[in-house]
């Protein structure tokens, strides 16, 4: 989280206590010891409040983890926090049972098969378009870009019915687009594009003109420039985008619910189908939900810097 880190470091001085800044001399007599004590106490109160908040934020996920590590009968008899008095209750049996279920394992691989292509395709297609928007001249360019910006906020709900109908009409031999992984992927790509183009165009536009012109002067074709100059320089923005798209697709439920069938369903849809009996199915739902969130969480912790950048750059979706 490098960006925010530097931010708070800079803000730390004046925020930390009233007597921080160099221009303090004149004001010091007016805010004497009393103000300083208030500052200290204020800091202590802030500490305390934030500890409470951090605990409140962690407890729900921690509860899920513990519940997933207890047997069905223990979960039925008492709350997960009782584990502190009986650590011996912890067991991996729910996980091994779940991983023994063929349809869950299939749904895990479907999630991967949906997420990876949907992420790669968005990166490639959006980079090409963003390059054209940033560095090529064509009639209606600005107008078209504003349309893309407008599409940023379109709710997926608008497209569910029409696209379902459209997919239903696409049948090539025994292949039906509706219910296929391809259909789910294409939908995710299309709805990922406005944000992706928006993010990348703004980043590509910031690449110094001299660099491009030098390359064009050297006679490099647009493809070469795209591959050799833009794509490598766009690294950080592309990383932000890829992480965003990855998380968005991995975590999606609604699109899968509409366009996937039981053969192509991702984990989210499979887990949803187990929700009807919540307490009765907790031995499936808790480990399943935890397995489904562990991958995005790992991605988040590994690449949080790019994730935060993406949030800051694209706060419109």
């Amino acid at each position, binding site marked *: 989280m490098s960006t*925010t880190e530097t*931010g*708070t470091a*800079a803000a730390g001085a004046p*925020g930390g206590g009233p007597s921080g800044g160099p*221009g303090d001399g004149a*004001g010091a007599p007016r*805010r004497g010891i009393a103000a300083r004590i208030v500052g200290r106490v204020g800091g202590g109160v*802030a500490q305390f409040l*934030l500890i409470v908040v*951090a605990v409140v*934020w962690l407890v729900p*996920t921690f509860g*899920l983890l513990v*519940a997933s590590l207890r047997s069905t009968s223990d979960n039925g008899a008492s*709350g*997960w926090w009782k584990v502190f008095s009986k650590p011996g209750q912890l067991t991996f049996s729910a996980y091994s049972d779940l991983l023994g279920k063929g349809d869950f394992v299939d749904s895990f691989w479907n999630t991967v098969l949906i997420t990876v292509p949907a992420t790669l395709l968005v990166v490639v*297609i959006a980079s*090409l*378009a963003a390059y*054209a928007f940033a560095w090529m*001249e*064509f009639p209606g360019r*600005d107008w078209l870009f504003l349309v893309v910006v*407008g599409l940023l906020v379109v*709710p997926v*709900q608008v*497209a569910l019915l*029409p696209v379902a*109908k459209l997919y239903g009409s696409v049948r090539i031999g025994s292949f039906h687009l509706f219910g296929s992984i391809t259909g789910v992927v*294409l939908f995710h790509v*299309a709805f990922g*594009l406005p944000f992706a183009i928006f*993010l990348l165009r*703004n*980043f590509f536009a*910031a690449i*110094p*003109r*001299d660099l491009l*012109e030098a390359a*064009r002067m050297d006679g490099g074709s*647009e493809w070469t420039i795209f591959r050799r100059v833009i794509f490598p320089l766009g690294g950080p*923005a592309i990383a*932000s985008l890829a992480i965003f798209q990855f998380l968005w697709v991995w*975590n999606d*439920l*609604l699109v899968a*619910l*509409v366009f996937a069938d039981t053969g192509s369903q991702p984990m989210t849809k499979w*887990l949803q189908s187990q929700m009807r009996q919540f307490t009765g199915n907790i031995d499936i739902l808790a480990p*399943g*939900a935890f397995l489904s*969130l562990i991958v995005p969480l790992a991605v988040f912790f590994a690449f*949080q810097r790019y994730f*935060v950048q993406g*949030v*800051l*750059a694209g706060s*419109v979706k």
Partner: protein
Amino acid sequence: MTAPKDQAPGEDGTPPGDGTPQGRESSPEAADTTAASGGAPAAVAPGTNADGTAATATARTAKSTRGLTPPSWLSLTFLLPALLLLGFLVMYPIVFSVVRSFFGADGHSFAGVDNYTGIFKGHDNLVTVRNTAIWVVVAPTLVTVLGLIFAVLTERIRWSTAFKLVVFMPMAVSFLASGVIFRLVYEQDPNMGVANAAVVAVHDTFQPGAGYPGAGPRTGNDALGTQQGDGTIVSSRQYAPGQSALLPLLRIKPEDLPTKPVQAVQPPAAKPGELTGAVWFDFTKGGGGNPNQPNAGESGLPRIKVEAVRDGKVVGKATTRDDGTFTMKKVKGDGPVTLRLPKSNFTASYGGAQWLGNTLITPAIIGSYLWVWSGFAMVLIAAGLAAIPRDALEAARVDGATEWQVFRRVTIPLLAPVLTVVLVTMVINVLKVFDLVFIIGGGDPHASVLALQMWVESFGGGNDPGKGSAIAVLLFLLVVPAMLFNIRRMRRERA
């Protein structure tokens, strides 16, 4: 996002301390001042970690060398894949949905605006509309306020990075997983759901109750106690220190018994000056057993308060153990006492709030939404805070402003553009909220919102694509102001 320009400060009214004229940039200098002045969350956007942002502005101004630009047909090949996908899967569906929304369920009969008026007809539909309104007003406001509080408070601690990670983390978790997490949190039974466990713990600290409603002594000749009108039970005979008392109870509801009952036993022998006793459920399953004696298979009653009373004054107190026995170590004064089980033992124990009941379900789901999104607001606002010029704050402090005044009069106005962006983003997001309501609400009509109702009408059993389309179009229309807000922002930036 050529960072600084995107969020020109003074979106609505120029914040104090920002001396930059609002003329739209183009000189590197202007770009720099805008970056330094407040309210640019994007000041920390991708641009920053590549080449300096000033370079952008220079590049922009020099739009001259036309000879080198490629022919425009070439740009079409770069754009084609994106345009095809956007055209077929985003633009065309919008048009299709609008048209479809004017037709009935079968798709042939023209329905006029019936599908739209239908959204506001009938009890369940109105609840859905009301819930959506609550969501749109409450959730974005709370997310922004929490984000602001967290962002300001983290400036005062050393472990701010760790804190931000913790609060930001749920953003990476799917709504489905968040839904499962919060279904678990909101479980009704205080022995299962952590929310009610906390509520009950707090409640019982102030108003403890053992929770054996309806219980009472045996009536008739062999009764060892009598029950008063308010539920209090008083022993029939008196006990002197050094004696032991038997206080059998009947009419205990099975669900009020301890989950792991402990065999009732005879009270321990009382030492001089002590009073001991046993309270138990004097009922042997399947019959048999001696009345007024703790027989095998009978359960002790834990957590019952016992008081010793002499001349109307409480002279001793004890609480029963898991096996139902108690020991009253100190009994003030001399002489025999009456034993009393106060009425608090026989009021229903507090079971916590009905989080997923009709009234609280929407606030409860909004609570889980706050858990997911507050980190987002915090990160954006923290970036905005970091971009506020220190001079403005210091100047106010030198002038003798208190920290609160500085916050209220300087920080907040400078942050206004960021707060607006967060609020607008959240409103758009809230209108689309589906998964959380679907998972936590579990189909309860009291929790429904438009985004969920759209799915229900179209795919989840409603079987009316006309109505579904109408709701989708309504959702789309509701985000149009946000769309225009974004476009205006972009145009201003590029003008």
